[in-house]
């Protein structure tokens, strides 16, 4: 079932991956986890390869995670970010792409506020492109590290009930996760206020709940999403205090879920908005493990995408 190799240049989203490819990435990440446990956390695999990290949106966790992954594989990396870049000086995205191409990188990791930018870049440059988040569209490596974390705790993905709670509308994490989890046979319920719930959600093959209690019932996994205050043009709920009253995860509310539930959060967390500190730091939380696994999963993706194509039979 698992293909022995990956035959693509880019990782733009989970939507286009097959279940077998997802398995391959997760299995490969398992091998890379061991590299992170060595005294010398570095392998020579991508020696002489150049990776450009192109971040048009602020990111600490994802960018550092990619950087560490690249360094552990011995790749040379260069970081570009919006502030001070040519883009701020009026350069078009296509010109940026052509300029990057001229520097002949092997891989480009890109985050951009607009959906589809990584896809546009992928068509124009020879290097492999990894989407590190495009608008509210996809964030494939986050979904992969979430799946990896779930698999390590539950041993499987198929048949699990996963509740994803919060700001569904503005979240790229939720879209990538819904694609991945439904492909792998998990049941997904998304929950949140109606004002943050896009109508298209039901068409993605998930259940929709409008109260926290309904969403959490019998959940094996709970993913809390950050309330993205900066992404909202208008406030979609009366106050942060009311949001926490209705949708904030507290110890008392956990009772609806399964006894061995795990709690995840893609970060950064707003304590006291979508999640109480007692839960975030509590025994069911695997939030910091997610961060650790992010490095292994990104190493796996960088490795698998750096095979050569075209000449291959």
């Amino acid at each position: 079932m698992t293909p022995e190799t990956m035959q693509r240049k880019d990782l733009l989203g989970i939507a286009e991956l097959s279940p077998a490819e997802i398995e391959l990435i997760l299995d490969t990440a398992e091998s890379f986890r061991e590299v992170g446990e060595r005294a010398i956390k570095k392998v020579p695999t991508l020696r002489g390869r150049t990776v450009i990290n192109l971040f048009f949106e602020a990111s600490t966790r994802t960018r550092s995670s990619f950087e560490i992954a690249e360094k552990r594989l011995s790749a040379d990396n260069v970081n570009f970010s919006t502030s001070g870049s040519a883009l701020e000086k009026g350069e078009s995205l296509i010109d940026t792409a052509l300029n990057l191409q001229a520097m002949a990188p092997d891989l480009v990791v890109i985050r951009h506020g607009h959906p589809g930018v990584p896809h546009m870049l992928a068509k124009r440059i020879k290097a492999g492109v990894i989407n590190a988040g495009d608008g509210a569209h996809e964030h494939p490596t986050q979904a992969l590290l979430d799946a990896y974390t779930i698999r390590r705790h539950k041993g499987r993905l198929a048949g699990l009930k996963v509740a994803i709670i919060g700001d569904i509308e503005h979240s790229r994490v939720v879209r990538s996760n819904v694609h991945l989890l439904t492909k792998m046979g998990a049941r997904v319920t998304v929950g949140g206020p109606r004002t943050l719930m896009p109508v298209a959600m039901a068409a993605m093959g998930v259940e929709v709940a409008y109260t926290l209690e309904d969403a959490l019932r019998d959940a094996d996994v709970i993913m809390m999403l950050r309330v993205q205050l900066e992404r909202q043009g208008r406030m979609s709920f009366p106050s942060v205090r009311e949001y926490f009253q209705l949708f904030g995860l507290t110890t008392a509310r956990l009772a609806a879920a399964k006894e061995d539930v795990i709690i995840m959060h893609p970060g950064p967390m707003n304590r006291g908005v979508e999640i109480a500190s007692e839960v975030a730091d509590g025994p069911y939380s695997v939030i910091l493990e997610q961060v650790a696994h992010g490095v292994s999963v990104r190493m796996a993706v960088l490795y698998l995408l750096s095979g050569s194509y075209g000449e291959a039979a």
Partner: protein
Amino acid sequence: MAKNLTPKTTILDAKQMARIIRRMAGEIVERNRDLPHLLLAGIRTRGVPLAEAIAAEIERMEGQKIPVGVLDITLYRDDLSTVGPQPLVKGTRLPRSIDDCVVVLCDDVLYTGRTVRAALDELVDFGRPKAVQLAVLIDRGHRELPIQADFVGKKVPTAQSEIIEVSFQSTDGAEQVRILERGASG
């Protein structure tokens, strides 16, 4: 197995293989009297059953259990950038620290020596072994690097068009060594 390969001869059957592995185990013990500091490291895939078989023989002879590690050298290969998609990484597992140990690398076939070069590079990332030795079931010649084995099961002169196929019960459901010939069509 790859296509267009025709079996030419069987060079070792199960009985002969067992006898050779017993002899190699004896040679390893003879050279390394300090058994508590001995570690066998099998190179994936078929170095692993070889290492396990040697360890079982040593335990039978000396009553001492020898730890067996697994090396996956994929991330250290020198041909990763050439052609084709990336090979599957299955992971390395060493049961104990290799510092101050004698590590015996085990592989089924010694050919160009490039796999052993990669294994040596990987090993030093885990520590500083007291010494590293090499045990191979078949030495088929055609070295491309200055690498020789310390313990050889059988030397088999081959043509480069030939392929040595080593089978173990645990990985292939049979114990034998055969020479295969690449077919004319390819």
